[in-house]
C-alpha cells in the first residue's frame, strides 16, 4: 500500500474532516441510542457519586488507597466523588465495578454511560440517592450560614 504524503493533499483532507466526529460506526447493540438523551441522568449520577463514596468509606479506604487498589486515576476518582456532572471513563467504571464486585453494566448506567429501560432500577437509584444523604445535625456555624442565606433570599 502506498501512502499519499503530499502535504497539500493531507491539509485538504484535514480541512474536510475538521470538526467532524471521527467514527466509523458503533456496535449493533449500541445503535439505538443518541436520539433521546437520558432523562434520568442526574438521579443516576447522584446515586453513582454516593455509591462510590459510601463503598469506599465502608472499606475504610482513602481516595488514594481506593484508586490504587481499583487501578484508576486518583484525579478522576476525586472528580467522580465531587462532580455529579462529570462522566467518567468507561474503563474507570469497569475497574471500579470489578473492584467492588458489582455488575458493571448497572454501574455504567449509574455513571451515565449506558441507558436501561427498567423503571424499578430507576426507582431504586432515586431512592438510594435520596436516602444515602447524611442527616446529621448542622453545626452552629452551618446553621447560622443557612439562616443568613435564607434571609438574603427572602429579602430579594
Amino acid at each position, binding site marked *: 500500500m502506498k501512502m499519499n504524503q503530499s502535504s497539500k493533499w493531507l491539509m485538504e483532507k*484535514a480541512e474536510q474532516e475538521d470538526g467532524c466526529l471521527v467514527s466509523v460506526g*458503533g456496535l449493533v447493540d449500541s445503535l439505538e441510542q443518541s436520539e433521546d438523551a437520558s432523562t434520568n441522568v442526574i438521579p443516576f449520577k447522584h446515586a453513582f457519586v454516593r455509591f462510590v463514596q459510601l463503598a469506599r468509606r465502608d472499606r475504610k479506604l482513602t481516595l488514594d488507597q481506593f484508586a490504587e487498589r481499583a487501578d484508576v486515576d486518583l484525579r478522576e476518582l476525586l472528580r467522580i466523588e465531587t462532580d455529579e456532572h462529570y462522566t467518567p471513563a468507561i474503563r474507570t467504571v469497569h*475497574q471500579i465495578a470489578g473492584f467492588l464486585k458489582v455488575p458493571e453494566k448497572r454501574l455504567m448506567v449509574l455513571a451515565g454511560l449506558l441507558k436501561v429501560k427498567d423503571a424499578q432500577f430507576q426507582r431504586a437509584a432515586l431512592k438510594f440517592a435520596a436516602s444515602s444523604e447524611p442527616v446529621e445535625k448542622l453545626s452552629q456555624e452551618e446553621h447560622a450560614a443557612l439562616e443568613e442565606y435564607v434571609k438574603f433570599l427572602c429579602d430579594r
Partner: protein
Amino acid sequence: MRPIKNRFLEERTARDIDAQVTKILRGLGNPTCPIELAAVRELLKLDRQYYSSTDDSLLREMVSKAMIAGKQIIARPTLLLDVVRKFDLKAFWVPDRRRIMIDKSQPEPKWRWNETHEIIHSVVPWHDGAMMGDTEYTLTPGGHEQVEAEANYGAGRLLFLQGPL
C-alpha cells in the same frame, strides 16, 4: 486549524489499549508495515464480511443471515437495516458472531481503517462489558463517543505499529 472533534483518552485507558495492541503485534511476531489485517483476523478468530449501504438486496441477505446468528436481530429483524441507514454506518461489529461488517460502498482506501477500528472494539475488555450482547442496555451519547474515540486511538496504534505518538 481546529483539531478534529475527538477526545483525549484517560491515561490508563490509553495504556490498556496499547497493551492489547502490543499483544496483537507480539502474536503476529512483531510485523513490519503494512500490517496484514487478514493475519490479525486469524489471530483473533474474527470473521469479516461486506455489505453495501447502497444495495438493498445485499443488506437484506445479510439481515436474513444475521437473524439466524444473533438473538438481538431475531427479536427485531428490521433493526440492522434501520440502524445501518439511520446512522450511516460505514462498518460495525457483531460481537456474538465475532464478525466485522464493512460497507463496500465506501471508497476502498477507507476499508482498512474501518476494519481496524472494529478490530479494536473486539479486543478492548470494557467495550465488551459496556455494550455487547444485550438489548436491555444501550450506550448514552457520551458513552458512545468514548468507545468510538478509543477504537480510533487503538486503530491508529495498530496500523502504525505503535510508532511514536
